[in-house]
């Protein structure tokens, strides 16, 4: 459980679309304490525009190879710089950070809902759930068919349902409109994506009395509970997303 700061070796930097890439990182440390939903703080070196570390979810872990992956979207200077790193270079990372997703109850039916780069933490979660006997369904939303990523990876976990905003693949619209939500009955939903999506799913779950966990992406400075910048307003007052999250049960949030 101890957090550590380490220079990790980049085994592979793989561009998967125009604006998404996956970094595979090798560690000299034992990784078995990493749990689904946790994140890392990446140092983007030597740039005046990237003074602070960048928080990124742990996308997948290979306990055998002692590697883990980050799925990153290029949104600004920091992620742009990260996208240019070459295989063999190293990256200074603080990890593992944050809490983790809670387990479903016994025999509960589980759905993972992700949108855009919010799908990142769900792969590791899905694999873990499958490995301990659950059969999660997965519902993914994208802007259009060209922006679909990691589809094959999620297929390995369970049934994958798709929406695109323009209907170019899967059902047309937002994830909350997908027919699976009205046909299947889930006990627990895990969601990560844009705030608007998570709020819609949270509302849906509240109405249908389902248990729902979301992973928040608040702006962070330290990532270790020292600065109090990343707070979210909860029923228990302001909590730090970096230590008491990023995963919150929606009953805790004032959504």
């Amino acid at each position, binding site marked *: 459980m101890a957090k550590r700061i380490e220079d990790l070796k980049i085994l592979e930097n793989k561009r998967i679309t125009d604006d998404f890439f996956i970094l595979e990182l090798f560690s000299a440390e034992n990784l078995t304490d990493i749990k689904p939903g946790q994140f890392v703080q990446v140092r983007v070196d030597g740039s005046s525009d990237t*003074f602070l570390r960048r928080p990124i979810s742990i996308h997948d872990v290979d306990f055998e190879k002692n590697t883990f992956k980050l799925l990153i979207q290029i949104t600004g200077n920091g992620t742009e710089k990260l996208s240019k790193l070459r295989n063999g270079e190293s990256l200074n990372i603080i990890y593992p950070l944050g809490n983790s997703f809670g387990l479903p109850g016994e025999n509960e039916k589980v759905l993972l809902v992700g949108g855009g780069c919010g799908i990142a933490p769900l792969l590791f979660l899905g694999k873990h759930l499958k490995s301990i006997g659950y059969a999660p369904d997965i519902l993914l939303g994208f802007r259009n068919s060209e922006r679909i990523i990691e589809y094959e990876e999620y297929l390995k976990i369970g049934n994958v349902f798709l929406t695109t905003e323009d209907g170019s693949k899967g059902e047309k619209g937002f994830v909350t409109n997908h027919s699976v939500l009205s046909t299947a009955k889930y006990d627990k939903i895990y969601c990560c994506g844009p705030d608007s999506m998570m709020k819609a799913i949270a509302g849906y779950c509240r109405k249908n009395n389902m248990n729902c966990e979301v992973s928040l992406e608040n702006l962070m400075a330290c990532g270790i509970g*020292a*600065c109090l910048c990343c707070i979210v*307003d909860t029923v228990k007052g302001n909590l730090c997303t970096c230590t008491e999250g990023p995963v919150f049960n929606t009953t805790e949030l004032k959504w």
Partner: protein
Amino acid sequence: MVNLGFSIGDLDFKNPVLTASGTFGYGPEFDDFLDVSRLGGIFVKGTTLEPREGNLYPRMAETPSGMLNAVGLQNKGIDYFEKNIYPRISGYDTNVIVNINGSYIGDYVALAERINALDKIPAIELNISCPNVKMGGMAFGTNPGSAREVTKAVRAVYGKKLIVKLSPNVTNIVDFARIVEEEGADSISLINTLLGMSVDVRKMKPALSTITGGLSGPAIKPVALRMVWQVAKEVKIPVIGMGGIMTTSDALEFILAGATAVQVGTASFIDPQASIKILEGIEKYLIEKGFSDIKDIVGYINRNS
């Protein structure tokens, strides 16, 4: 070996590397990364009499070589501190110092009295410089009369070491330093954050919920250094310098300019081990330059000019 120790009156510090309030939590947040007891001292989170929720999100914005924060003194209040935090941190083998804040002079006085009673807290840092609260804070630190009054009132009830933390958002920092020295401060720490602002051009609105916030990090180092130099020349009590210290070299700039000790702030967010690395670096520098005592280089640049 070189001597790194210094003292404020009869309070000894094992070395001059301290951590800045609000950037190091209470200490345990960093236990995984370093042995907190190796530091000269830690200045814990800004504490108030009553619990405070602080300002609304977003509270943070990145700026060139720095960051803005508008935390606004979120903390659980002195009761909670005494009961739940004090027991956890009083085992550290270093000076644990509480940063105290209030909206009225009475708040500061009441807090100082409470902390006076805590055995393992040898000093307080009187924060009259928080830019992120509507009442109190910087209002005390930018008005000479208020700065005098609050220092005098706290001094009257607080028997241990009193460190007053100054605001850089003033025309003449030396005036404030002289005032708090006159009123019995045992040491002065500076600088707190510079009042700054950032605009989200895409969203066409301020980046912070509070519009303005406190600027910290390397960006402010030249201003901090200038103020520390100005103050150290004019007061007799030890000056603790801070503002943008990321590396050994940064810390040494402050010490050479007159700071008896330094606080590492924002740097701990980027490298949680920054403080320890700086401590090791200072020792190495002294050895390389052939000095046997940190005191030999405090204010060194003033001796030759």
